[in-house]
């Protein structure tokens, strides 16, 4: 399994910034690096965490929304990061816009009421219904490089 790194988010934010949103997307320099690092690493370190890809994906998605590592655009970053994580691990998401929006909002509300485990379950169930394995289109050499960078990132202290 290949996770995301700080550089993944560094690649995502400029693309989001180019879109015209009512609420602006911050620069990577505004990221709370400690919170973001923790959100990306914790699902892989959690002793009770399942090693199932969709469970880890759900955990990362919820942590990116809940930890609020950006002053703004945390849900948008989490949606794109989820898309990225699934793709690199050979999954494709097929949910409608309405369903994806609803699940992101559900995580926000459940987190506000300290129902974080419930939020992860909601996203996990959503992913089980709305994703499927797709043929891997990333060349093996690139996958190896992605994995190597992730391993290096995981080896660094939080």
């Amino acid at each position, binding site marked *: 399994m290949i996770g995301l790194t700080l550089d993944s988010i560094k690649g995502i934010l400029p693309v989001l910034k180019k879109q015209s949103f009512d609420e602006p997307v911050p620069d990577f320099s505004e990221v709370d690096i400690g919170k973001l690092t923790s959100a990306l690493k914790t699902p892989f370190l959690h002793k009770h965490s399942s090693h199932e890809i969709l469970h880890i994906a759900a955990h990362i998605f919820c942590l990116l929304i809940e930890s609020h590592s950006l002053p703004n655009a945390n849900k948008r970053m989490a949606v794109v990061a989820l898309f990225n994580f699934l793709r690199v691990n050979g999954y494709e998401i097929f949910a409608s816009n309405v369903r*994806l929006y609803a699940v992101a909002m559900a995580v926000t509300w459940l987190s506000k009421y300290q129902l974080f485990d419930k939020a992860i379950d909601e996203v996990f169930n959503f992913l089980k219904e709305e994703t499927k394995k797709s043929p891997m289109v990333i060349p093996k050499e690139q996958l190896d490089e992605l994995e190597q960078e992730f391993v290096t990132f995981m080896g660094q202290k939080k």
Partner: protein
Amino acid sequence: MNKQQSTNTKKEKNFLSKSKSFAVHIPQRDKTSLPSIQQQFGTTVAQEAVEKYGQTLQWLGGKDRV
């Protein structure tokens, strides 16, 4: 091998070893200035995500969001 030939061979070896060090160092220097593969992949996939889920992102980025 006469003295002239021996000098030429030494010069050749010297040149080759310098060429080799250039061949190794230049690509390494270039590589460090490139974004990491995670960053490049993040950008590429983000563009796909924006195409596919632009509407979701618009709703999430709207002022009237919850």
